[in-house]
């Protein structure tokens, strides 16, 4: 049901690199799981409101007052590559440097 091409497409969307063995396994496993899940496809749920959340809250806003923020050095302490008070990451463009 889910073929190799679809697995590679979804993996790209999810920013996951899968190796060859994982692609094969994933295609079979996802097909099996979706085969079970597909049983809900036949239920007649026309007009039923979807539930995204069970607590019926709307627009929970706090008072517009400043709170203490985490100091930059604390926020950066766990970063793989802190750099001059910022998070450093490779360039989004390949071969940019």
């Amino acid at each position, binding site marked *: 049901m889910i073929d190799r091409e679809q697995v590679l497409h979804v993996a790209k969307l999810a*920013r*996951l690199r899968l190796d060859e063995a994982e692609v094969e396994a994933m295609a079979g496993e996802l097909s099996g799981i979706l085969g079970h899940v597909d049983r809900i496809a036949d239920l007649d749920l026309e007009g039923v409101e979807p539930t995204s959340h069970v607590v019926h809250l709307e627009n929970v806003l706090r008072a517009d007052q400043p709170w203490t923020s985490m100091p930059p050095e604390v926020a950066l302490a766990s970063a*793989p590559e802190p750099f001059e008070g910022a998070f450093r990451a490779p360039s989004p463009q390949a071969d940019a440097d």
Partner: protein
Amino acid sequence: MAELTDLTVAEAAAKIAAGAISAAEYFAAWREAAAADDLNAYLWRADGGPSSGDWTGAGESAPAGEGVETPYGANAPAPADSGPLAGVPIAVKDIFTTEGVPTTAGSKILAGYRPPYTATAVRKLTAAGARVLGKTNMDEFAMGSSNENSAYGPVRNPWDRERVPGGSSGGSAAAVAGGLAPAALGTDTGGSIRQPASLCGIVGLKPTYGAISRFGMIAFASSLDQCGPLTRNVADAALLLGVLEGKDPLDSTSVGLGGGLSLPSREDLTGLRFGVPKEIGEGALDPGVRTVFEATIARIEELGGNVTEVVLPHAEHGISAYYVIAPAEASSNLARYDGVRYGMRAAGDEDLVTMYEETRAQGFGTEVKRRIMLGTYALSSGYYDAYYGQAQKVRTRIAGDFDAAFGEVDFVVTPTSPSVAFGLGEKTDDPLAMYLNDFFTVPMSLAGIPAISIPAGLAAPEGAGDGAPGLPVGFQIAAPAFGEQQLLEAAHALEGALGFAAAAGDAVPWRGGDRA
């Protein structure tokens, strides 16, 4: 110090508050017990107590005169000899952030991560006088029903070390059942407190969605995740829930229970109505589990409870809806693990997208990848309505089924898990078979209602020979949203009548009765 670790949490806290035993002595006794962990239940254990980072959240960086009391600084720790949990050590699932203390969520991608702040649930425990005894092993990002998905190795069931403790809060359940902690904190998204409690023969409570703050609880599926206690008995679960519940300014979806929760005292079930879903008669259930379930129903009737059949016509679709909704939310929540702000980064000077893909390929385990793929697929263009939209409608129907049932009965009861603890490796090759473990627990999660698992008896595993030692069977009781007090009262009365720990006798592992 066997006598100290034999005390329930409620008894110990009362003795410490009264000065009958010292908090330091009690903590030391449990630290010694925790140090003997041979179940791989702990990922980190307190030695001199949890260390503390520099940042307390108490007003350092707010502009002068403008800052209000920061919510991060709320719930400051109480002295260990005061408060309702005075001096009580608690094992905390490694999904809760703890300032300065390693927090991995069972994942390699967070190896070595020391969070800069502490989860509200943990802060509330320490504000009540409790102390963190250790961080417990778990399925990676709480995805699993056997604890075999931890990047740090599986946890063993203290009743039988060749079997799983359940998951995802398997370390927390094994620690309490194995006598390595007096009580533990877990999280439950589709059964992750109740199912391991069932497989380990202890009490596990999933409160109403919103009862306890999720701030600092590493997110799996945000519309389902809820924190709760794993304990040896119902009264201790009530004690912890009373401390943990409450609205939190740091979690806008938190509601709380309004305070005033009292320790359960009820000893009969007269006048209470219990509904058994008709669908259980048809479902796949191990014969041993069915026998214990039916005996428990008989016990409810002996206590004066009225048992009737109810119908939950859409509950059978719970697994399908859950395994769309939870992975969909997870695929979004786990996008944050990108190798930039915290956690591991796959080394290399390649471009940004390659760094993301490599980091996630190396950092995530198989089940997490599977769920991210499933969720991304279900949310992708062309499939959104068919999967995610349809699953959300099923969720509405399941919640409606419970509403209708609670018009006729006070509680809905089911087995917690279709089987007793299964063998290590027994279900790892079949993800769907693993997911079906959650058959009885997922509907309550989708409906957001509270449910508790209490140990009801022992049953031999299916296929075991005559005379095979029994393993714990859990009994699940579910109540309407915010019906925790009534739920705990009923569970307490039934627990007293079942006398599980007394009946199991020396087989109970926290009394040293392990057999393997």
